[in-house]
C-alpha cells in the first residue's frame, strides 16, 4: 500500500506539470459546455408521435392521415385519455402527442374555430422544437387548402407544450452529451496516452521489473484520472445549474453512480487502447477517432439515432456514450429512477467486463 501511494502521487505530478494535460482536464470541459450551449440544428424524419383524438370525426381523421403521410411522422400510439400521455413519454415511445379537442369538426363547422394541443418531449429540445413546427405547418397547410373552397375562413388554433423542458432550453439537451464527451476524453484518452508514454520512455519496463504488481501499476495510473473525471462531472453539473439554470430532476446520487460507472468504462477502454499500441500518437488517434468522434456524432448527442442509416445505428448501439446519454437524460431531465435505466446500466457493466478481460488477456500474452 505504501509503494502504491507514492505511485499515485507521482502520477499527480505528471498531470499537474503538463500544461496540455491540465488544459484538457480543466479548461476543455468549461469551453465545451459554453460552446455546445449554442446547439446544432437537426432534421426530423419518421418521428414517432401519438394521437389522442377526443373527437374522432372526419376532420380529425383527415388531419391525422395528413400527418401520417407527410413522411416526417409515424403514428405509433393511439391514446384514449390524457393520463396515458405521460407514460408514452416516460417509456420514450413517442416524441410528441397530438391532442384534438372534443367535437372538433362540429366546432369548426359552427364556430369556424377549433383547437389542437401539441405536447412534445423537450428533453431533446431541438428535436421537440422541430417536431412541433412541422406539425403546425402541416395543420396550417390543411386549413389553407380547405379555406379555398369555403366563403367564411376557419381557424385551427394550435397550442404547444414542451414537456420536461418548458422553456425549450438547448442546454438541457447538450449537458448529457458534453458529460459523455468529457469523460471519454479524460478517462480514455488521457489514461491511454499516459500509460503508453511510460512504455515509450522505457519506465514501464522498470516498473514491471520492480516488486509492484501489474494490477497495482494499472490502478495507480488510472486512479488520478478517475478522481479528476469525477471532479469534472461535478463541475459540469454545477456549471449547467448555475449558468444555464438546469436542475437535476432525478436522484443526484444515482446520477453520480452512473457517471462513476461510465468513468470506469472509459478507463477500461483507455487501458485497452494502451495495451494495443506502443506509441502515444497512435493511442491519441485511436482515442480521438474511435471514441471521441462517435461520442459526439454517433451517440444521439447531436444527431438523433433514429434518423441514421441502419449501419450507423448499429455503430451507435455499440458506442458506450449512447447508453450513458440516455441514462443521464432520463435521470437528469425526466427525473426517472433506476428502473428506467437498468437496461442501459447493464449494457455498460457488460462493456466494462469485456474490456477489462480483453486488456488482461492482451497483457498476459505480452508477458509470455
Amino acid at each position, binding site marked *: 500500500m505504501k509503494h502504491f501511494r507514492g505511485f499515485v502521487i507521482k502520477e499527480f*505530478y505528471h498531470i499537474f506539470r503538463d500544461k496540455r494535460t491540465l488544459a484538457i482536464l480543466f479548461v476543455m470541459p468549461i469551453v465545451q459546455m459554453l460552446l455546445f450551449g449554442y446547439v446544432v440544428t437537426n432534421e426530423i424524419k419518421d418521428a414517432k408521435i401519438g394521437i389522442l383524438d377526443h373527437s374522432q370525426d372526419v376532420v380529425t381523421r383527415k388531419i391525422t392521415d395528413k400527418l401520417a403521410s407527410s413522411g416526417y411522422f409515424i403514428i405509433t400510439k393511439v391514446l384514449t385519455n390524457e393520463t396515458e400521455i405521460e407514460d408514452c413519454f416516460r417509456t420514450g415511445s413517442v416524441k410528441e402527442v397530438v391532442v384534438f379537442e372534443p367535437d372538433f369538426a362540429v366546432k369548426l363547422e359552427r364556430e369556424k374555430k377549433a383547437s389542437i394541443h401539441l405536447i412534445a418531449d423537450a428533453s431533446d429540445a431541438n428535436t421537440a422544437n422541430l417536431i412541433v413546427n412541422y406539425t403546425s405547418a402541416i395543420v396550417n397547410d390543411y386549413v389553407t387548402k380547405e379555406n379555398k373552397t369555403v366563403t367564411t375562413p376557419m381557424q385551427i388554433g394550435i397550442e404547444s407544450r414542451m414537456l420536461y423542458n418548458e422553456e425549450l432550453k438547448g442546454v438541457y439537451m447538450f449537458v448529457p452529451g458534453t458529460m459523455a464527451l468529457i469523460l471519454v476524453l479524460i478517462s480514455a484518452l488521457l489514461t491511454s496516452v499516459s500509460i503508453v508514454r511510460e512504455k515509450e*520512455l522505457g519506465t514501464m519496463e522498470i516498473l514491471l521489473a520492480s516488486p509492484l504488481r501489474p494490477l497495482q501499476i494499472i490502478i495507480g495510473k488510472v486512479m488520478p484520472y478517475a478522481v479528476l473525471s469525477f471532479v469534472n462531472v461535478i463541475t459540469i453539473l454545477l456549471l449547467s445549474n448555475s449558468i444555464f439554470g438546469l436542475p437535476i430532476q432525478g436522484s443526484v446520487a444515482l446520477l453520480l453512480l452512473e457517471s462513476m460507472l461510465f468513468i470506469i468504462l472509459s478507463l477500461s477502454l483507455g487501458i485497452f487502447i494502451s495495451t494495443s499500441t506502443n506509441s502515444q500518437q497512435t493511442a491519441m488517434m485511436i482515442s480521438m477517432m474511435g471514441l471521441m468522434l462517435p461520442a459526439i456524432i454517433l451517440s444521439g448527442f447531436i444527431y438523433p439515432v433514429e434518423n441514421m442509416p441502419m449501419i450507423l445505428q448499429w455503430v451507435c448501439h455499440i458506442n458506450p456514450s449512447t447508453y450513458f446519454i440516455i441514462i443521464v437524460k432520463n435521470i437528469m431531465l425526466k427525473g426517472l429512477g433506476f428502473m428506467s435505466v437498468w437496461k442501459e446500466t447493464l449494457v455498460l457493466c457488460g462493456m466494462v467486463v469485456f474490456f477489462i478481460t480483453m486488456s488482461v488477456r492482451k497483457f498476459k500474452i505480452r508477458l509470455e
Partner: protein
Amino acid sequence: MSERETIITVNHLVKKFSSFIANNDLNFEVYKGEIFGFLGANGAGKTTAIKILCGLSKPTSGEATIAGFDVYTQKDDIKNSIGYMSQKFSLYEDLTVTENIRFFAGIYGMTRKDIKIKTQQLLAKLELEDSAKKLIKDLPLGWRQKLAFSIAIVHSPKIVFLDEPTGGVDPITRRQFWNQIYEAAAEGVTVFVTTHYMDEAEYCDRVSIMVDGRIAALDTPQKLKETFEADSMNEVFIKLARNATYNE
C-alpha cells in the same frame, strides 16, 4: 574462480515464440560480485533472456534461479532482489532529481527514513546537491545516466541488470559510467550487463557471446581472445558472428 558463490544459475533454458526460438538451450552461471557481460548482435536473444532473468517473462522450458529464487514460482522474490536499468536509462523527465529517487526507492518498499538518508548520500556522491530540485529534462544526458544507474541500485539489490546502458553516450561518459559499475561491483553487487560496444566487453570479468539464440562462447575476455586467436574482443565477436551466417 570455482570456489566463488553462484548467484544466477541457468540450465537448459528455452524460450519459444510460436515457431521462433529466441533462446535455445542456455546454460551458464554468474558468480556473486562479478561483472558479467552478456553480448550478442541485435536479435540474438539477449533481451529475451534478460526479461526471463528479471521475472518479466516466463521461459518455455528449462530452469533458472536468480539469487536463489526460481523464475517460475518466485517472481516476487526475484523482483525484490534485483535492480534493472534499460537502454533508455529511463527516469521521469517531468519529475525532479529528488522526486525520482524517492519514487523508485518507494516502489521497492523502502521506508521513508531510509529513503531520506539514501537520497542525501546519493546526491552527495553524484555531486548533484545543487540540482536536487531540477527536473530531469534539464539535466545533461551523462548526469541522467549516472543518476539512472544509482537509482537502479538505490535499494541495494543483489544483482543489477543493465540492458545496453551506454547506448548513444559519448566515450568519456561511457568510461565514467564504467567506473560507477566497478564501484558497485566492489561493494558486492553482481552486475549483469548487455552491450554491443566490444571495447566495453574488455571491462567485464567474464563475457558470454550469444549467436542466434545460443551461447556461442563464455569465458574471461583474455581467454576468449586466446581461444579465437584474436587481438580484441571485436575480432572474437566478428569471428563468431561470421560462423552464424554460415550456419544459416
